């Protein structure tokens, strides 16, 4: 017998979010949605007075930040180190140069000329001071947290939802519990396979969405400063938390089928890949 699931869907973080709880209440889901919206307002680069925009405009001065922003920036540094520099929050100038200079929903255009903007190593341009909970971004550098924000938030918010829930923020999700059937939550991956798990995170990265112009897309390769050229369309990673899944999936897409598989297998995670040939064969 299946247990009853209470669910809530809403648009935030530039995507669709889905919260599900077994034997939970809509009130808990509403509180969680509210937290997603508060975090979105804090982390967006498209609003001039958001906390991220203020940090990006601080011209190298140390700026006090909220506890959540400080944690997010620490996560960005971790992602940079864990990925060997492939996940670099300092890609905003490269994204802007590629034409991603406004919310995707408003429509993006092909830039007149595509200029490569290689980001500086994040650890050299972002300074964090824990005692004063402040951060400094080097002049000329700007951060985009879109690459890790959904996973980071899903990991934070799962606690709000209890012991048997899914927090799916735009496809990057954190879950715990046996789900409605009791054998774990059943999660679909990018290659149409599915897994059941009772505690962990799942995330998918790829180049199939947020595309514009002539081959432009949102996944910047920090090694080139341009939208990534890869033989993978999408990668899903199942691991212990959504943030790690997001980082590993992005690494795999950037490294390509051979390098990506080696990267993921060395880390012992479950994954699914959608190679570029898959779309041509379909």
């Amino acid at each position: 017998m299946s247990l009853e699931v209470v669910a809530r869907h809403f648009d935030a973080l530039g995507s669709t979010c889905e919260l599900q709880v077994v034997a939970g209440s809509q009130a808990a889901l509403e509180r969680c949605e509210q937290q997603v919206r508060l975090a979105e307002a804090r982390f967006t680069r498209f609003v001039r007075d958001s906390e991220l925009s203020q940090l990006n405009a601080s011209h190298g001065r140390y700026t006090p930040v909220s506890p959540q922003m400080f944690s997010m920036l620490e996560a960005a540094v971790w992602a940079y180190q864990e990925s060997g520099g492939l996940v670099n929050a300092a890609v905003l100038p490269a994204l802007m140069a590629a034409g991603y200079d406004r919310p995707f929903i408003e429509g993006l255009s092909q830039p007149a000329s595509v200029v490569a903007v290689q980001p500086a190593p994040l650890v050299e341009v972002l300074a964090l001071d824990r005692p004063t909970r402040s951060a400094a971004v080097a002049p000329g550098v700007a951060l985009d947290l879109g690459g890790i924000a959904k996973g980071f938030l899903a990991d934070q918010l799962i606690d709000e939802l209890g012991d048997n829930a899914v927090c799916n923020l735009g496809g990057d999700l954190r879950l715990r519990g046996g789900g409605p059937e009791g054998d774990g939550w059943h999660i679909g991956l990018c290659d149409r396979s599915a897994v059941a798990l009772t505690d962990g995170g799942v995330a998918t990265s790829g180049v199939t969405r947020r595309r514009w112009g002539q081959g432009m897309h949102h996944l910047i390769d920090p090694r080139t400063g341009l939208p990534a050229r890869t033989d993978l369309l999408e990668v899903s990673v199942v691991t212990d938390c959504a943030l790690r899944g997001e980082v590993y999936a992005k690494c795999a897409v950037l490294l390509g089928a051979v390098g990506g598989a080696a990267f993921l297998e060395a880390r012992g995670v479950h994954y699914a890949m959608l190679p570029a040939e898959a779309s041509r064969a379909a």
Partner: protein
Amino acid sequence: MSSNTALRRASMLGTLLLAALFSGLVIASPKPAQPPLHPAVKPLPSDAAVQSQSYVS
């Protein structure tokens, strides 16, 4: 093979294994760089209904 023979062989094997262990001859199996980060994943049949989907957004 009689049960006595089988027992003798098992005993001999055990003795040899212990001797090898203490003399440092047993080579440890290679270990992954870090432990599996999510060993409790259960793959589902291809026609399984899913309750949530991971996707690119």
